[in-house]
């Protein structure tokens, strides 16, 4: 009897799994499930919008891939990729040596410098000396976290790590942080918001360290998927060449986000 029950339970379990097993056709494009304007942010109807969402649409259309966007937790985005919960990361992830040990990247699709912001009431430089003794917020497992720990953390600053960029910004506005280091465009969007306008301004760009800050943002894919990688690289090149890239970029930026 107990066997019957167990069989029932197990087959039901399988049933649930099977019911959820959609035909594995569309590629799932992962990014952080948090507001990260102007790249990805949810709107009031529950859809995601932003530069990177448009980029994703353009790329998938160009490469003739069927894509579906899948927001996941940022701190688990690489495990999500390797355990096949998602198939690509289009989530402002910089190409770094450290990440290349675990996953693969397409060519870069944008590149921007790294900035530091702080409260308006204080003046300091975005240098190890300027940030000495201060508490600086960064998002976990980002290039900024690595950079801030190396350059500021080892020189007398406290580096505080946040699950999302939004939380770090909020804590800066709430006076719990003295500075936030992040991508300069994302910081710019925050400084333009009502909350950011009131409290904070840009303190400067950090000194570049290509080994940590990487060579731009690429599409993260699993290792060994060279066919997909080739398709994506070709698509990036194509939308750069045919003007699609510039068309949707103009809606968000007044400069070339692709970088040099």
């Amino acid at each position, binding site marked *: 009897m107990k066997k019957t029950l167990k069989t029932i339970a197990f087959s039901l*379990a399988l049933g649930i*799994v099977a019911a959820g*097993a959609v035909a594995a056709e569309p590629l799932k494009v992962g990014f952080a*499930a*948090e507001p990260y304007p102007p790249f990805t942010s949810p*709107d009031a109807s529950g859809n995601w919008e932003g530069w990177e969402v448009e980029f994703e649409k353009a790329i998938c259309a160009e490469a003739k891939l069927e894509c579906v966007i899948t927001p996941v937790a940022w701190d688990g985005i690489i*495990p999500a990729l390797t355990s096949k*919960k998602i198939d690509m990361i289009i989530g402002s992830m910089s190409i770094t040596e450290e990440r290349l040990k675990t996953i693969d990247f397409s060519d870069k699709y944008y590149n921007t410098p790294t900035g530091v912001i702080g409260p308006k009431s204080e003046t300091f430089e975005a240098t190890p000396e300027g940030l000495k003794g201060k508490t600086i917020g960064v998002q976990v497992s980002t290039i900024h976290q690595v950079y801030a720990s190396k350059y500021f953390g080892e020189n007398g600053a406290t580096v505080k790590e946040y699950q999302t960029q939004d939380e770090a910004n909020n804590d800066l506005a709430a006076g719990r942080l003295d500075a936030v280091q992040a991508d300069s465009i994302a910081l710019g969007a925050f400084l333009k918001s009502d*909350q950011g306008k009131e409290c904070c301004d840009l303190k400067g760009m950090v000194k570049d360290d290509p080994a940590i800050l990487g060579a731009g943002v690429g599409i993260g894919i699993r290792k060994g998927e060279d066919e997909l990688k080739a398709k994506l690289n070709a698509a990036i090149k194509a939308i750069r060449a045919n003007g699609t890239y510039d068309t949707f970029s103009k809606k968000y930026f007044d400069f070339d986000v692709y970088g040099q």
Partner: protein
Amino acid sequence: MADPISFLNWSLLALEPPGWGGVLLRGLMNSIEIAIGGYTFGLLLGIGGACGKLYGGPITRDLMECYTTIVRAVPELVLILLLYYAGTDALNYVLGLVGIGQVDISGLVAGIFVIGVVQGAYTTEVLRGAIKAVPAGQIEAARAYGMSPYKVMTRVTLPAMLPYAIPGLSNLWLIATKDTALLAVVGFSELTLVTRQAAGSTKAYLLFFCAAGVLYLMLTLVSDLIIRIIERRARRGFVEQS
């Protein structure tokens, strides 16, 4: 900024965009869906587990003991992370071995699976206690009438243990609804995560977290009401013990 004025900006909660009410309600639906799925899955696991613990052979019993011990000793948050990443991976691996091949596990299914496994251990314990509370004489009498073990289970043990199990099971339902909030940590769009997204986008943190709190509270209170009705029905003919 989340000043008192924007805290009182109720229009942010409007159901239609630009209000975020619709998003919150959809998150609530997701939460309820996972809670129902996880609870049901957990109930099945729990029935199997309780029977295994009470009537199984020594090995089954020990394995069940390990399962319930681990789940009861490790924080749900850790279990959810482990099951979410490793559990679904392992499931796919096993399915691959059996020959069914890779299945694409959607977030919803993963969430149900994760909550279900955690709930299963709790349910096992609740049901085990309830089955043990059934007077042995009733089961012995059924056996003496020559009922098969399966019949004893479905006709006597399960119906007789229900009144003992319902208080615990209804508490577990309430816990299941609240445990779904933990899936926010793995990025599943249930109520807590969409609330955080809405709050982050609008900077009206207090307003949205309070609104979500009200939604959760309403879910609890409505569940409570239904549970009371069920409880009254199940306890019909029972002597009030105290």
